[in-house]
């Protein structure tokens, strides 16, 4: 049960990371709100 839980959590984390990376390469992620981008994803 713990292994399945861990796999689900890993999948959620992977999806969130994918979304964050997609947002980081764009100018804005959705409509008119932009939360502060993490430093590691900033294009500086």
């Amino acid at each position, binding site marked *: 049960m713990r292994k399945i*839980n*861990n796999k689900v*959590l*890993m999948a*959620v*984390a992977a*999806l*969130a*990371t*994918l*979304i*964050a*990376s997609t*947002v980081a390469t*764009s*100018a*804005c*992620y*959705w*409509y*008119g*709100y*932009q*939360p*502060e*981008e*993490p*430093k*590691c*994803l*900033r*294009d*500086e």
Partner: protein
Amino acid sequence: MFNLKGISSNLAKNLSEELKFNQEKYEVVEYGLHAFFHALLSVILVIIFGAAFGVLLEALIISFTVSILRRSSGGAHASTELSCASIGVVGTVIPAIILASCNINITYTIIISILIFIVSIYLNYKLAPVDSPNKPIRSEKKIKRLKKGSLITLIIYMIIITLNIFLGVKLNNLSFLVYSLCIAIGTLWQSFTLTKLGHIVFKLMDSFFIFILFRKGRKQYEKN
């Protein structure tokens, strides 16, 4: 009032503790979750209000037109997720209601679409991408890529509108002309938010919704 950032932070914290992520990884996961929940909230609100006013498909077309173009062009930003979602609802449902109740013909559709796209291409060429303090864009390479992306997106929209108009004439169905105008209006609104005037209007709408939602002035909200 519920706090999307709080929800995504708590979820990211739980994930990080279970999976033993470091601070950097936690921030990335939190950012991704926040983005996902905000987009979901925005779409759900457009669906609810669009359906309530009988313009669900039109409102969704405008919403997705704006959001997809916004990914390359950027534009004015709201200061909270809820005021952003509210502006999104107003900016999509109201034009959808107006377009759905207008007497549309093919000549007006073509003329309006051409005018809108001439203005939009000019504005995106001159101004895109427009960044925000929370997501600065400094790399020349990225600026060029995003500007190119905006113009390519506009060209794709023009092709879709042309196909829609063609289908509308071929099948003798006015709905396709309405959908074409939805794409055009979404494009115009998004291009408008690139301009100084667009930023002023957006800020006014943001202040209005912050007052309505939080019963505070904008400056008071930012101070807190």
